[in-house]
């Protein structure tokens, strides 16, 4: 029995995905769970896994096509099976989505309409000449970042050359000139979501100054026994501590939906990763239940994939609480914006050596400041402060994170 693979919904606000590359060609055999295609969403390039095993009978869309969520993209069947793709696709409930993509914002609708040419789809969603496409690909330029000066707004060679030339001379001559850079898809998404969060979520902030001495000592001790490629980062401990603290405060591991607070049954910690294109959050599932060493290696893999631009859907979806760490940049402390629909986010500064008063004496200390931003519709300052107390108890007695 043949299976129709549809454009997956890889984010709660995803309306369409750009099919960048078919990993499995027509006629290739594919296992269930094997990577079938690469899709670029607002956030990242994501590997789509096949929902079924068998032979790829047909690609229903070419590469570099924007496809609405739920629209059929491929047919997987048994070897030797006769597949009538038209008939199959006709039965797919999501078919209606092809004609009218379910968009969540007017901006998206506009993008879909302008990208398509009547009923057709422009390759990559942009009108560009072949030579412009080639030069952009060679120069590592995203055509979506360019404005076309040709007929019907077509991006032509001179547009790409102007961008290539601008990039080249800016570095070579260090001439700083005013320039207008169109928002990338990721930047636009971050902007839209953070604006919505700041406008709609009443944030409040609770900070704490922690003794990081025991944690740093434990880390030093553990890392001295570990090979270079599997040493713990400070963040590994903090993520684990946050996850364990959340077990006791389900309100902070929740989402507000209408007049209900959804307290998640899982603790999935999003870890913010700074990429050149913008911020991406990778997700550690069940972080409270994951042993620290495993958590550390999973996080290393997730960050590696994010930096390589090859995240999978599960890598960036479903976080219930986020940890954002700017410690590597010598930051004392900062305030983070909540990553909707989550209820809270923890901002982590740098570990600092500084004088501390202890039993009436000034002694050298190792300190760490954290700030919790929380949604006042879901929780209050007192609860946030109590959460920080528990978080402190874990980080200041970090051996508890190992058991």
């Amino acid at each position: 029995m043949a299976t129709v693979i549809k454009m997956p919904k890889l984010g709660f606000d995803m309306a369409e995905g750009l099919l960048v590359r078919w990993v499995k060609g027509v006629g290739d055999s594919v296992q269930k769970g094997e990577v079938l295609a690469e899709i670029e969403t607002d956030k990242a390039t994501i590997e789509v896994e096949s929902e079924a095993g068998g032979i790829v009978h047909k690609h229903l869309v070419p590469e570099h096509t924007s496809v609405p969520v739920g629209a059929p993209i491929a047919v997987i069947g048994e070897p030797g099976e006769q597949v009538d793709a038209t008939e199959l696709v006709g039965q797919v409930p999501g078919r209606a989505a092809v004609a009218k993509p379910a968009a969540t914002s007017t901006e998206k609708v506009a993008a879909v309409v302008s990208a398509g040419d009547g009923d057709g789809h422009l390759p990559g969603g942009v009108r560009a000449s072949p030579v412009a496409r080639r030069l952009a690909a060679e120069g590592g330029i995203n055509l979506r970042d360019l404005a076309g000066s040709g007929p019907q707004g077509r991006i032509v060679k001179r547009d790409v050359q102007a961008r290539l030339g601008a990039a080249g001379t800016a570095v070579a001559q260090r001439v700083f000139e005013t320039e207008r850079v169109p928002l990338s898809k990721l930047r636009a998404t971050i902007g839209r979501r953070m604006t919505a969060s700041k406008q709609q979520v009443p944030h409040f902030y609770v900070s704490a100054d922690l003794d990081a001495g025991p944690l740093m000592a434990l880390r030093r001790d553990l890392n001295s026994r570990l090979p270079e490629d599997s040493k713990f980062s400070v963040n590994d401990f903090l993520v684990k501590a946050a996850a364990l603290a959340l077990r006791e405060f389900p309100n902070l591991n929740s989402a507000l939906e209408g007049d209900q607070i959804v307290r998640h049954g899982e603790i999935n910690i999003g870890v913010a990763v700074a990429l050149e294109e913008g911020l991406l959050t990778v997700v550690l599932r069940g972080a409270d239940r994951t042993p620290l060493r495993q958590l550390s290696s999973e996080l290393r893999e997730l960050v590696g994939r994010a930096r390589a631009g090859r995240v999978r859907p599960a890598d960036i979806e479903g976080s219930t609480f986020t940890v954002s760490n700017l410690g590597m940049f010598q930051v004392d402390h900062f305030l983070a914006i909540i990553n909707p629909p989550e209820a809270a986010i923890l901002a982590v500064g740098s570990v600092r050596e500084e004088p501390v008063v202890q039993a009436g004496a000034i002694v050298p200390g190792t300190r760490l400041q954290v700030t919790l931003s929380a949604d006042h519709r879901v929780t209050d300052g007192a609860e946030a402060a109590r959460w920080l107390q528990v978080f402190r108890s874990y980080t200041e007695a970090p051996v508890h994170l190992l058991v």
Partner: protein
Amino acid sequence: MPEITIREAISQALWEEMERDSRVIILGEEVGLWGGTYAVTRGFYDHFGPERVRDTPIAEGVIVGAANGAAMAGLRPVAELMTINFAFLAMDQIVNGAAKIHYMFGGQFRVPVVIRAVGGGGRQLGATHSQTPDAVFAHFPGLKVVAPGTPHDAKGLLKAAIRTDDPVMFIEHATLYQAKGEVPEGDYVEPIGVAKVQRQGSDVTLITYSKMLQLSMLAAEQLAAEGVQAEIIDLRSLRPLDMGPAVASVKKTNRAVVVEEGWRSFGVGAEVASRLSEEAFDYLDAPVKRVAQEEVPLPYNRELEQQALPQVDDILKAVREVL
């Protein structure tokens, strides 16, 4: 180098080939005593005699059929068709005869015939005598189709046509006989199936041949005054079609306009544009434009006829659309 007309260049090629090779003969309507409708063979009858310069009945099927037979029997006939419009009367002899015999007889016979045919519009000869059906003949494998646009190429290519063992449609443009150009004295041959860069440029590629080469050169001069350098590729031969120089040029200019006198649909421009999309797709910065004849039987009225035929302004307009 002396400047001569295309008429003189063709005449010289025929004369020199007949002097060089006694198997070369000429046959056609009024080619002998009268010296040719376009005066190409004036003086030939007296010099080479009625055996080698033969006047025929007004029957094109007979002209080409007799030429095919003579070619199969060992001669190298040059058949003249007064206009290419009359070639339709000889279509069976050209398409099912000349183009097929070598193939269908397993190579036992060759048909080294040259069919000189005069085409093109612009002389108020009416719809049936003004056509440019070059693409029709280029459609058939087995034929070579040559259409020179300069005196130099007219002489060199006609000599090549006479010397090749394959049947050649040699298409002359009725309004080009007086066109002048430098032609080397003495014997030389231009290869069939090799396109030629007639003008160097960097901004846009004009791909053309025959009469439209002359118009394209005029358009290029106007464009140069505006700071646009057009490169002109002269196909010279439609079959075999040499796309090499056109592809190389488009890789440089990223823009192409095909200029032909025939009708747009299913024409030379359609073929060239298609080949460019296959062979230079990643280098195109604009759709390939075609300049061609309006899709109507060519009007007799002078104004309408000129409007229907491609003009320099049409070339300029198309170039501006792709720049």
